[in-house]
Each structure stands twice: as C-alpha cells, then as structure tokens.
C-alpha cells in the first residue's frame, strides 16, 4: 500500500497537523519509503499467534474508590491545573468559540 498526496492530506487532517502543499509533497516519498519497509512484516507467518497484550505478562491492578487518596492524582487543585493554560478565565479554560 502506498500513499498519495491526498491520502497524506487526509492523515494530516486526522492528526490535526496543518500542512502546506509543499510539505505534503515532501512527506509522500518519505512515508512511502517507511511504509514499504514495514510491509516486510507481511512475510511473517503469524498463524495461531495472538497479538501481544502485555509486554510483561501481568493483569490490571485495581484502585480503591477513594476521593483524593493521593493529592498527585486527586482533584481540588484548580490552580495547578490551570497554571499553564494559554487562556484561563473565571476558572475555565478558554478556547475559540465552538459551534455544535
């Protein structure tokens, strides 16, 4: 499978990265080179093999349902959450107006 400029444009748009025409054109051969190379994986016989689900065989630990048990992962820290916001007003993050 290889990508053309329109495909790269669609992918860039899905990834929300604005790209000018020249950049899209430059990306086409680069991405195709990488894709062509990774497609050698198709050679591998994977009959009966399950995709890896956990790097080190393990299952999920569960957390107790306690509010703010650890301040590092709890709420009640609005100032910290908003501290780096490009726009914050009245305790909210501000973004360009959205029309739903």
């Amino acid at each position, binding site marked *: 499978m290889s990508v053309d400029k329109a495909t790269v444009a669609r992918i860039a748009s899905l990834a929300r990265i604005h790209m000018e025409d020249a950049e899209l054109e430059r990306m086409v051969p680069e991405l195709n080179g990488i894709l062509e190379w990774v497609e050698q994986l198709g050679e591998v016989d994977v009959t009966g093999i399950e995709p890896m689900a*956990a790097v080190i065989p393990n299952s999920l630990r569960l*957390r107790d349902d306690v509010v703010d048990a650890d301040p590092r992962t709890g709420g009640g820290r609005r100032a910290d959450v908003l501290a780096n916001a490009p726009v914050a007003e009245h305790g909210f993050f501000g973004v360009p107006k959205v029309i739903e």
Partner: protein
Amino acid sequence: MSNYRIQGATGEWEVVIGLEVHAQVTSNSKLFSGAATAFGAEPNSQVSLVDAAMPGMLPVLNRECVRQAVRTGMAIDAQINAWSRFDRKNYFYADLPQGYQISQLYHPIVGEGQLLIEADEKAGIPEDKIIGIERIHIEQDAGKLMHDQHPTMSYVDLNRSGVALMEIVSRPDMRSPAEAGAYVRKLRAILRYVGSCDGNMEEGSMRADVNVSVRRPGEEFGTRTETKNVNSVRFVMQTIEHEAMRQVDVLEAGGKIVQETRLFDPGTGTTRTMRSKEDAHDYRYFPDPDLLPLVLEEDFLAECRASLPELPDAKRTRYTDVLGLTPYNARELTAEVETFARFETLLAETAKAIGKDEAKVATQVANWSLSVAPGVMKAIGDEGDPANATAAAQASILAMADKGEISGGQAKEIFEIVLKTGREPSEIADAEGLKQVSDTGAIEAAVDAIIAANADKVEQYRGGKEALFGFFVGQTMKAMQGKANPGVVNQLLKDKLG
C-alpha cells in the same frame, strides 16, 4: 409485535430503534483518577492532573466502577467477560483533554444480555417483549463546553472529564417510541435497583444516543442516524417520532438518508445535523498501552453476584405469586426503588404489628400504599408533612383497622392528623374519639332500641324484604355516632332479626 407504523404518502413505514445509553457509574472518584465525581461543583475544581491530561499522567482503574459494571451485567443476565481490555478512541475536541477517550471496543467487560419490557396496552405495547442488549462497556465521560458565557470563546470545564460511564448498547430491537420509552424506564429501574447508577437524567447521569432508521415492513434495515445525548424518556420518544418522520419525508421525496450524528433540540422537539463531529468518523481505536488486560477473578465475580438485590422482574413475580397482589399493584409497587422500599418496610412493620404473615396483610398494605395514603396526602397538600408518615405510624393505623378498632374512614382521619401533627396514631384515636365501639353490650342496647322503635320494618324484613337490612345497619351506626364496629353490628342484627 408492535403495530406502530408511519403512514407516508407512498405507504406504511416501520421504524427501527437501537439505543446506546450512557449511564454514570455510581462511584466516589473517577474511573482512572482520584478526583471526586459529585455533581454541581465549581468549574475545574474536581480535576486531577490525570483528568487534565498533563504530560506524563497515567490512568489507574477504579475497582468500584468495574464492580458496578459487572453487577449491572449480571442484572441483565449478560455474559460477563473475565478478560477484557481498554481501547483508545482517538479524536480531537476541547472537552477531551487526552485527545482520546478510554473506552472498550474490542473486548468489552459485559457481552450479550437482555431486558424485558412489559405489555402496556394503552401505550401500544400489546405484549411483553425481550429487548436484546449487545454489550456494556466502561468508558470515560468528557468534560463540558460552555458556549454562551463569552462572545468569542467557549469555556471548558473538566469536572466531568474522566467520570466513569457504562455504555449499554441495545440491539436494534425496538419498533416504536413507546417501546424505546419503556426500555429506558426499565433500564433505569434496573440500574437503580442494582445501585450502579442513580438514574438522574436531569443531572446527566443517564443519556441516550438514539439510533433510528425506517424501512418498509419486512424489508432490510435502512440507513440510520444517531442522535446524541438525549436526556429524558420523553425526549427519546420525541427524537424517534421526529427523526422517523423526517427520514420518511426524505425517502419519499426520492432522497437518501445520510449516516450522521445529530442533535436533539428540546425547544422545538426536532433534530439537526451536528456540525462539530462531522469528520470524526475514523477513531483509530487501539488497545490503551497504559493499561493491562482486565482479568476478573472468581471471588470478585462471586461477590458481585452475592451483592445483587432482588431485581424488578423477580420482585414483581413474588408480589403476585407469594404476596397475592394484583398484577397492576405489583407493577406499580416495583417500578421505582423508593416505592418498593417504602412498601416493603411498611409491610414488615404492619405484619409485625398485627402478628400475621406478610402475605396475609400484603393486599391491605398495597392498597393503603398505592391509593389510601396518597389520596390523603394529596387532599391535604401542604398542610401535611410527609416526614410524619413513618412506617411505624402507618403500620399502627393499619393494625388498628385490621383489629376492627377503627373504621376505614377513621384510618384516613387519623392519618391526616398524623401528617399534620406527627402525633401517635393510637393517642389520636383515643384523644379524638376516633375509635369503633366493639363492645357488644352497648351495640346490643342500640340494636334493641332500634328494633323496638321500628316494629313495622322488622315485620317487613322478616316477611322477605331483605333490602331493609341496610336500614337497620344505618340506624344502628347513627345511634352509635358512626363508631360501632360494622362487623359486630352486622352480626348482632342478623342474630336478632332472625
């Protein structure tokens, strides 16, 4: 079979409905962080670094959310998947800090289940119907965007970001707005019985994505639209009515239905295309590498099962088969958690106060609960305080009535005073003279006097005019100022009149 049909210009259309209900899981903290879930907090005050998707933050799963989803699955007889996993659903939106929602696509925690909606002739559901449930999965809620606070900006509040949701996905098994309404109500009842969701639709604890398509009866499914986040039973029904009509109009005009996401406008009762999500169809789901497979151990499952309460269908059956209630009463009493809880408490108290089995007094208690007590409350309105209507007080009234100490009318009068004052029923009965006389001597004297004073009527009665019996009862009661036990009066009159 539902016979709901839309009459188009070119003939009949059938509507096909599937619902994806998002139910907020009852938990203190969020699905993957320790921030609180309480409703109505200050903006961004219940947001952890994890919920705000700060760089390097990681999710850790809340056990209670898993437990509630499993219990819910068990309550709809569903397959519980001992091995499940979380996937990322990738899309960009300002209410989605991570740029993806952690959800479950490939391996949900709960598989196939089902739910029964009951026949309701009046609503157009002629018989009981099973609605298939495809799956329940756990996922994160998004934050909230506010568009009307600033002329050029939208504001983002992440308090809801990361709150646990169960998405309960039905099969496209519903065929009318009424069936969809009944499904949502029944699902809500089950969730509330189980305690896995408070079912509070006004606060957004339950929302439905309504999938609607139309077809000619018997033909293949048509193209569907999905109307997002409809937050009441009535709106779900309106969405279906409007959307089905719209689709029929489009099709009959020779058009095609576009598979799309729509929004319901409660003001107009109509739906419209949702512009902001137009291009979000490629979600690039893949297993969340920050989380490992979720494996449920046998003892965890056993605890979930053991902690399940009696569910609506089982309760309804017990009410009719064991307690001997009418199907109508059984359905009314089991529809809501609060209703059956009050009923069962009062039933237990009353049975104890009377000293009889619950089954023996259940019909009285049911009638009291569904008609007598609500009638009194309604009649006196604001003058009464419902808090005064304790189970103990009501049981005491029912017990006095059962023993013949008070009449039905007196029971209502006493209850009215209880509601207004909170006084003890037995004290009220004594102090206000609201008691029946069961003393045979006093009643006998009254009966004798009436027989003596109405010799002609006695003659006619004995001659076969049995309808006069009521006259004697009335006269006796009048003489007793209405306080005689009617049973005793009847018996004495029968004995004496021969």
